[in-house]
């Protein structure tokens, strides 16, 4: 009996401890830290052991007669004690037990006041005693039968899920069984089963445990994330990604949400907020941070431009009447915006939002990007002098020369595309380095004058003759070709 006492004392110590725990934090609080969770898990384990022992030894539902007599024989407490295993199933009632026990101890000393805790260890000791081996076997047999009737194994359940047969997850109450379910589902690679079990877990165990177990199973994590995505549950999705330290994904998610804002003003604010919260402080996302910053800056530029220009268009500004705006500039890509500004606001001062040069500067556009776009716009506007300015660089001592960062072949390509007059096209064709290249490109754009010139330069009389034969009669190119062919000053290649 003394050993029993000690056991019960231990028990009591344990309960005291658990009460201390309770005063520290709320059991059901979602914000329980991992350490706490582990501690909790341990104590939960203890509890389950306790529970299991109890259920193992005294099966009140199945064996009312034998167990009652058994208990009364040993402890002297009559069967009147109303005690069912179910009352121990949750934490709270057990804690209350210890309370009542204290009171009973202090108030009474009679044997009838012996609290239930005193009896429980004695049950354990009976069952572990070898005398009742047969009874134990009987009990185990019954338990097995009951288990068979009640539920299927995790394997069976997963099989049913995969085959599309009816199943029930609710019969799995212990965390271990639930995790077995999950592991089995992962093992057979059925996403539907995996997701179903995960959602069941989420519903039935507290978040800290759920997260802990999920983190141990990357496949499960992926399915959970996939589910959250399909569920548009972005809040939880962001949290989980954050928990997993997948900062980049989390940041991109937030960005995605930010850009889904329907109105531009909301989007600007959302972008700024998202930039501050998720990008700026992540060294790995420095580049992305820069891009998001640019996105926000772009919207902040487009907003007032659109505002002014739509008004100006409504008031009948001749520029917009001549070239009506097809769509609003809002939400257009940066290069399109640059083109727009080059087109409608090409001459604006740099301190204005509409200045193409200001855009170039703010977004650190390369010269190539800038020239290409500006050139296209000016060519479309037929601002030939403008193009000349764009391609003129200041040389030494105030001299000027024609320079193109994108190469004059590309300049010609753009001019051709925007249907520049032959005269202008020829001018720039002549600036292409390399006579063979120039010849090819001139041929491609059917710029006969330059072709003839180049062929003459190459002193290729045969080619010139062939080319001349294809030229339409009376054209300038044909005349030039004929002049050249007639000329005696040219030393033709042999």
């Amino acid at each position, binding site marked *: 009996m003394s050993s029993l006492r000690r056991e019960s004392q231990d028990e009591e110590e344990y309960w005291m401890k658990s009460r201390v725990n309770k005063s520290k934090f709320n059991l059901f609080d979602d914000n329980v830290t991992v350490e706490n969770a582990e501690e909790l898990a341990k104590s939960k384990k203890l509890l389950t052991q306790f529970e299991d022992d109890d259920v193992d030894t005294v099966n009140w539902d199945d064996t009312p007669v034998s167990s009652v007599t058994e208990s009364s024989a040993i402890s002297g407490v009559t069967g009147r004690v109303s005690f069912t295993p179910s009352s121990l199933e949750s934490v709270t009632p057990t804690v209350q037990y210890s309370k009542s026990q204290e009171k009973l101890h202090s108030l009474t000393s009679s044997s009838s006041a012996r609290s239930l805790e005193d009896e429980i260890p004695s049950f354990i000791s009976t069952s572990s005693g070898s005398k009742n081996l047969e009874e134990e076997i009987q009990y185990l047999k019954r338990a097995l039968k009951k288990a068979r009737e009640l539920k299927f194994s995790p394997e069976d359940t997963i099989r049913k899920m995969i085959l599309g047969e009816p199943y029930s997850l609710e019969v799995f109450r212990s965390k271990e069984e639930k995790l077995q379910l999950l592991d089995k589902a992962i093992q057979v690679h059925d996403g539907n089963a995996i997701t179903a079990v995960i959602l069941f877990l989420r519903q039935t165990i507290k978040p800290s445990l759920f997260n802990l177990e999920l983190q141990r199973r990357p496949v499960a994590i992926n399915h959970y994330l996939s589910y959250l995505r399909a569920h548009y549950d972005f809040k939880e999705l962001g949290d989980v990604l954050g928990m997993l330290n997948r900062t980049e994904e989390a940041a991109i998610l937030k*960005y995605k949400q930010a850009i889904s804002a329907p109105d531009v003003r909301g989007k600007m604010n959302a972008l700024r907020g998202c930039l501050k919260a998720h990008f700026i402080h992540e060294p790995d996302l420095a580049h992305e941070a820069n891009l998001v910053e640019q996105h926000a800056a772009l919207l902040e530029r487009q907003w007032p431009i659109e505002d002014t220009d739509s008004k100006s268009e409504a008031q009948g500004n001749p520029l917009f009447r001549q070239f009506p705006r097809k769509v609003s500039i809002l939400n257009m890509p940066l290069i399109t915006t640059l083109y727009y500004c080059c087109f409608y606001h090409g001459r604006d001062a740099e301190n204005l939002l509409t200045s193409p040069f200001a855009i170039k500067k703010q977004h650190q556009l390369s010269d190539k990007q800038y020239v290409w776009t500006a050139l296209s716009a000016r060519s479309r506007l037929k601002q030939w002098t403008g193009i000349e300015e764009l391609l003129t660089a200041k040389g030494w001592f105030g001299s000027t020369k024609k320079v193109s960062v994108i190469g004059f072949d590309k300049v010609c390509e753009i001019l051709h595309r925007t249907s520049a007059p032959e005269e202008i096209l020829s001018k720039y064709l002549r600036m292409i380095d390399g006579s063979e290249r120039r010849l090819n490109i001139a041929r491609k754009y059917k710029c006969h004058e330059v072709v003839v010139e180049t062929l003459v330069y190459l002193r290729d009389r045969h080619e010139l003759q062939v080319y001349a034969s294809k030229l339409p009669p009376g054209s300038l190119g044909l005349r030039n070709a004929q002049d050249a062919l007639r000329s005696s000053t040219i030393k033709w290649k042999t």
Partner: protein
Amino acid sequence: MAAPSVKGFPDFQRLKILAKDEFTSLLDQMPGRKDLVIDGELMKPLDRIASVSLLKQRGVDKIFKFDSSLKSMHGCEQRIYLVRPRMTTMKAIADHINSDRNINFKRKYSIIFVPRKLHTCLSVLEYEGVMGYVTVSEFQLDFVPLDKDVLSLELPEFLKSLYLENDQTWIHTVAKSLVRLQALSGEIGHVYCIGRGAKMVNDLMNFLMKRNSSEQDFSRHEIGSLILIDRDVDYVTPLCSQLTYEGLLDETFGIKCGTIEFGPEVTGKQQSAKLLLNSDDAIFEDVRNRHFSNVLGYLSSKAKSLQQDFDKRHGLKSVGDMKDFVANELRRLKEQKSVLANHIGACEQILGKKTKGGFEDYLQTEHSLLEGSGLRENVNFIEELLFKQDNMLKTLKLICLLSLTQNGISPQTYKSLKTQYLQSHGFEQLVTFSNLKSLGIVTEQETGSQAGTPLNKVASGMAAMTRRSTFQSLCKKLSLIPKSDDIDLKNPTDMSYVFSGAYTPLSCKLVEQVLTRGGFTGMEEITKYLPGGVHSENHVKASKDHSTPLKDKSGKSARQDRPVSKVVLVYFLGGCTYSEITALRFLGKLKGYIFVIATTAIINSSTMLESVMEKPPIYYENNRFAEIEFVPVAIKARSLFSGNSFAHRSTECSLILPGAGMNLRHRGHGNPRGGSHLTHDVIMCLDRQVRQKEWEHGKLTGLLEGSGLGDNVNFIEELIFKQDNMLKTLKLICLLSLTQNGISPQTYKSLKTQYLQSHGFEQLVTFSNLKSLGIVTEQETGSQAGTPLNKVASGMAAMTRRSTFQSLCKKLSLIPKSDDIDLKNPTDMSYVFSGAYTPLSCKLVEQVLTRGGFTGMEEITKYLPGGVHSENHVKASKDHSTPLKDKSGKSARQDRPVSKVVLVYFLGGCTYSEITALRFLGKLKGYIFVIATTAIINSSTMLESVMEKPPI
């Protein structure tokens, strides 16, 4: 077994027939007229299975295309939804149903999931509360036979789902399709898996199949081997520009489920033409696998010969011949002519598009990327496309190829290309780059890893990196890039002809290798570069493996020249391109194999990239709005899971929340004899209050009697000023409110404020709880005099009760008139409270027993919330008479008839005082009371249980 198949191909028409039968029986499950609402992406596959006339025949009235943006739909009384299992779809269907119910339109709904129902979908239906109105079934449509050698699941989302999100939901569909196929064609003896998903499919397939271990004659089965290939093993091939006719048709016009639609620009007529592209079209069959350079010439020669056939009609001699020609030949020729015209028109379109867009330069760049040469020029070319804001998909393809062939892009180039891409095509594409990074398609080289393999990366990333760093090694080891430039595109000798001889598709080359070597042995040098590894299984007994089948029975001789081992099913997970199909067909012809190609979907570079791009280009504006619409859905659906469990918990916690109050009231119903629980509120406080009376100079009696209100309030305030025991004070406040029909607003506010100031503002919660319980309430302004009229029913009842505590006292004479109660020899239950008050609950018990029910108690019971109820299970004759059947030996009982034993059950607890009072009552009136209760309480425990923080 089956009808003799075409040229050794297994007959897949059976699959169609099976699917058709399954579908018709599903339609028949809802007899009568019904509407059919079909998911857009199932339209084309269903078209291949069932005709409109069949549907009409089965009672389908109207056919709608499912539109998730519609909040409601019209139609007849029965409706069938045929949909893919998606949560958003479920939400939309639920909206339809709910809007019908809102206008009281009764309709029967059936949802048929293709190919299976998912847990998440059912959850949404359940959550939206429509599960009761729908019947749910599955239509296991997996393979849609597109041609004699092509089977497709038509599941383009597989790629994104498995490789981007690592979601294995569709693995089941792939495995199931194989199980069903093998049920028809016999088990497949050899299985080779290349990649991660392939292995998973194989595992799940084995799990589902329960292989028959007994000897099987595999030679009689129709398919010898199965090769499963993951798309992520080879992303390069689908990104290359297709150059075969069929591939170009797909890239230019888009082939959907084996059909193509030519617009007026191709047909040259007003209307567009729909064409079924398969081997039944003789002209198409001739050109589909050709390199494009070799198509137009063939078509024009065909046109000439057709013209000659036409011209025959001039040479017709007799009228009979003429008649014959018109009846047979003419129709065929006319059909051929129109088909030919369409193909020629299509060729013209393709040519036109390709020459306009600078296709040659593009192709050159692509090929030099594959070769790994001229890196600088290639990057320049890509940049130029960006300056020009050229087609965003085209540009992205090159960026992908650059990264895939070069083991990622060097950090500097990566940043600059990405930045410029976003600047040209919108910053939204940041998301696309993030997706491509996750897929391992566009990656940034680790700094310092350009020379060697990166070491410190996660396992999966590691494998991916290794693979890509070694695209060139794979090219070399498998000689994917042919050495000679002079490939005869007309009479090809090598699979690489599908890409103009520039590149042999990696996936097809792997298939060739596996078949040639009979497995992966000796391929270690190659397989080590493949992510996800390889796996092979052999279910055929070794003895039968390579020998010709011995058991062949007579009549099967036709098969002998094409042994089953030559029939190979190649299954692409994540989709395959027409070029790959063509390459395999060519390989089959070359090596004598019969290839059957199965795939989750037929893809091309554009559809593949679009499926993983966040916003499909151009339309992204619209899509964005579509997405927003679903956000509330998300929010709603989210609480689906968390909400449930919370509600559950709250009922357990009981007492605190209104739900608990409901429980209590409910219990009141079922307990006619125990008195209504609500009176407890009063009594429990009383119990303690009596003792206080002695201590606190009798102030409390005033409360019960309803006298000296001002004094009482003053007394309470005094206690508060003193910061006297908070429970004690609270009890008085409770009593004040209960006896006075709530506290007048002014007093209530002042008492509450003072209480909070004295005992902590946390007690605000307690007041809120007490208000919910109806213990401490504030009187409605203007209702002090009479009964409040405009309150909700339950609140009404509560008010009524409290407003009439005094009435109850009067009617039941709870407050004894005389002050001289002999506490030593009591004559009345009120002695438990020093004769100041008789417990209402006990009084009710007494009344019920005396009257034998509630008759005549209407004046009293009307004040009791929750009402009363009684049931009599004893037959009337036996009720009041003494038991007749009493046997001998039971005489001891006769002087205490059973009707005198009364069980009083207190729901929500009772006090010792009540027990004592009942004991006294029993002694007085000869009853034997047994008291049952949920718990024994006193004023402190009762209040503590509903207080937020127990007092210190």
